[in-house]
């Protein structure tokens, strides 16, 4: 008789267990951000993806892959993999020879109940105020269990 317990010697045949996929979205309404002056002017939006949608309580150590579209950056229907961190400056004009720009950052983390995708718009420039456009963030989060 084949002893299946012997197969436990390594985890070589183990894969990433696909658990769930959920869409998410957030809107960062346009606001005017004064120039940086020791205080960083910014606003944020968090999209939360519940991890217990299928009725199973999950630990915070769930893995994820997040496809995301920032509509001020990607064309409709195109997605990048957030893969941890997104950080990009967008120039919207110039003032006195200096570029007027805003910065968009995004990252993700797990807590006990949700996978949270945090997007922040800020003005790191000490020269100009800036009014970014309204930014719509859409995407889908793949949740998988991994071996932890």
């Amino acid at each position, binding site marked *: 008789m084949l002893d299946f317990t012997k197969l436990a010697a390594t985890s070589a045949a*183990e894969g990433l267990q696909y658990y769930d*996929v959920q869409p998410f979205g957030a809107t960062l309404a346009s606001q005017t951000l004064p120039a940086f002056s020791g205080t*960083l002017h910014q606003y944020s939006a968090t999209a939360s993806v519940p991890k217990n949608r299928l009725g199973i309580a999950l630990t*915070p150590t769930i893995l994820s892959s997040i496809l995301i579209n920032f509509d001020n950056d990607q064309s409709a229907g195109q997605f990048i993999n*957030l893969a941890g*961190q997104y950080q990009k400056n967008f120039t919207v004009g110039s003032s006195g020879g200096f570029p007027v720009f805003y910065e968009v950052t995004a990252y993700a983390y797990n*807590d006990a109940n949700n996978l949270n995708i945090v997007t922040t718009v800020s003005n790191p420039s000490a020269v100009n105020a800036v009014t970014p456009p309204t930014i719509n963030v859409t995407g889908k989060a793949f949740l998988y269990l991994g071996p932890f």
Partner: protein
Amino acid sequence: MLQMVLRLLRGITKLLMSVFDPSKIQITVPQFPMDQIIGVKTGSYTVAAGGPGGAATDGSDEFQTNFGDSCLFVGLFSVDNGVSWYTNGSIFPNGVDPTAGQLTLSFAIESDVDGTVSASSQNFTRSAYTVLYKIALLAKPDQLPLKPLPTTDILSYKSNLNYMKIVLDNVITLPPSGSQVIPHNLGYVPNFLFWVGSDESTPSDNRILFQGGANSGAVIDSENLTLTNSSASRSRKVYYRIYADA
């Protein structure tokens, strides 16, 4: 009586044939390959507080896989003793400097061709941290033969679980500023992961990093994955993996 014995023998023969005829075995062989986990590592390291003006400190932990090769990976990091976990490549923002702006702690995993895997952070914040990490090592499509790291876990492949299903798994080299369109033709936007070679200046450096976000140079839609090398001076080796899952 003889007819009963003959019928019994025919029945046994039929049963045995049905057992040993592979076409009669109703086990579904997976249609798609899946990620092969070749090791799991958990650990921690400390990183001192960053300095004034956004000066950074570094903290890391590294281990030897003895694979004699690099590998792919996924992972998580925690700075609050496991209450919340940040994905590899993410940041933890904490504070603003009057001159440097937003202060962050970063998280990164690297895999070197000599078999070393490291978890590290660069700390711009004014706080010190103990960073916990969890890493799963995945085989590359061109992985050299190796013995997976031993684990006390039981083999957890179960047919009642759903696994990430790979439809395209490849490695390409992009020339400086080059790009390549990879058709997947799935008709929907699928999940994908990718890893790139280090852009360090040492030619022999064959580390693998995980990249994403704005600097990733990877965009996917319902038909294609487009990879672009953001370096204008160096070619880059890129591993990509497109899944059927959507």
